[in-house]
């Protein structure tokens, strides 16, 4: 977690948000692009189903309808990003799939204005083709922000999914961490101890671990080792 956004919460705990890199961002973008393309394709076929020649038909519509339609189309692309990012707490379908989200620099959810800035600046990042400006900015910036993010005050962070299911199997009858450290220390230094010390420390340790005490140092050592290995 070398690249992470440090957020100081009012609870006085530092939360670390791992920053999303170029790869996952490109992936999310491609997914969104495919989605928009698919919607456009379906829309085109639906329209041609009713209207044989959409281009000429569009030219015969009234001025108001056409300007409204043109404006709607023009904003649709921009609205797709901004509206979804605000409504889905910084995610678009692509970002959701790749599990990244847009947040503001303080870790709070992205606001309308910030999202508007970063998505309007998309055309500069895209210039002249395929985001060279955005990619160079991301490579230079330590937080992997493109120009739109720099101006909007936003960062893309990764959502981590950690499954704690593997702790289900663990029983609670385990050795306490401090005792574990003591016992391992004892086992590793066993051969260096004086025989008297081997017995004395071994007996104390056995008592802590709840093992029956004996007078045989070697037996104690084996019992302690067996106890550690049954964890």
């Amino acid at each position, binding site marked *: 977690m070398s690249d992470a956004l440090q957020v100081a919460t009012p609870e006085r705990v530092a939360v670390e948000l791992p920053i999303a890199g170029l790869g996952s961002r490109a992936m999310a973008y491609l997914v969104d692009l495919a989605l928009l393309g698919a919607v456009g394709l379906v829309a085109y076929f639906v329209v041609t189903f009713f209207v044989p020649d959409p281009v000429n038909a569009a030219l015969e519509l009234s001025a108001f309808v056409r300007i409204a339609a*043109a*404006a709607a189309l023009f904003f649709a692309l921009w609205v797709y990003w901004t509206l979804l990012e605000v409504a889905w707490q910084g995610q678009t379908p692509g970002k959701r799939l790749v599990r990244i989200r847009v947040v503001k620099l303080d*870790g709070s959810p992205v606001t309308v204005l910030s999202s508007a800035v970063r998505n309007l600046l998309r055309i500069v990042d895209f210039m002249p083709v395929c985001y060279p400006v955005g990619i160079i900015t991301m490579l230079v910036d330590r937080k992997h922000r493109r*120009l739109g993010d720099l101006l909007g005050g936003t960062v893309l962070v990764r959502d981590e999914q950690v499954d704690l299911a593997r702790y289900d199997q663990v029983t609670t009858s385990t050795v306490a961490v401090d005792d574990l450290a003591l016992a391992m220390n004892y086992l590793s230094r066993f051969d260096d101890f004086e025989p008297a010390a081997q017995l004395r420390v071994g007996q104390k340790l056995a008592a802590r671990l709840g093992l029956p005490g004996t007078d045989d140092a070697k037996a104690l050592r084996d019992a302690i080792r067996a106890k550690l290995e049954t964890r």
Partner: protein
Amino acid sequence: MAEPLPAFVARRRPEWTQLEAMLARQKSKSLSLPELTKLDALYRGASADLAVAQAAYAGTDVQRFLNQLCATAYATIYKPRGAPMESLRTFYLQTFPRLVREVLGPIRLSAAILGFGALLGAMTVWLHPDGARFLVGPDLRSFIDRGELWTDSALNGRTPSGMATEIFLNNLKVMISAFALGVTAGLGTALVILGNGLFLGAVLGTCVQGGVGPNIFSFIAAHGPIELSLICIAGGAGLHLGRALIEPGEHSRAVALRGNAQVSVQLLLGAAPFMVAIGVVEGFVSPGPYFPWPLKLAVGLLSGFGFWRWLLK
């Protein structure tokens, strides 16, 4: 002093699971007040657990899990209260005019660049007719040579507003690129505005030269004043953005850029609805001889006067 990790997980995990479930339900806003109080307590508990994990179990998956849990809960609980969604009424009565007045310097500059470009375009047509061919395409020229205006013609397969839609879209593109190119320290904005002015001047010049001067002035009379104002405002927004790089003031350039971007984007978004409205005027009122030119001129002057009076009151 620290208990073994599995015991820690076993003891605390029920509360984490509960918090996760509550956060999922909070998205649909279906939590009651006692539940919200509970959510708060659970979040604080998880925060304390995260602190413990950072101290005793650093680098484990439990720490990462708690980190993610607290990040999600933090974003949910400390969400800024609807501040950006200020009501439209306040925005247009107060915020937008205030922002325009704040950024009046760059807006004036962008108006000057537009005017300079138009002058240059008209002079080019006047003094170097050959050079003007680069500025005004053969499409427009063919109309003008026939002694009519493209907007008057219903014969070429386009309705009278066919061109108007294109002009409208072009203006929209000009506005957005004028804003966004502000990040090039305003140079890109200046170029876009200058180019737009150049085109405008060249078209007007060519029309006057071709003998359809009255027609073109009658065409732009109704929507021209506001449309040009909007382009100047968008240009001003871009230049304001660029000013953050040239003259960041007491902030670092990055911080100044971020602050100015918030102002500029509001200018652009605020101007967008006017652009649509003026597009309708351009489509209905402006083309052809359906409305007498004095009426168009009156509409244009009054709307322009009213627009700036509202902004600068």
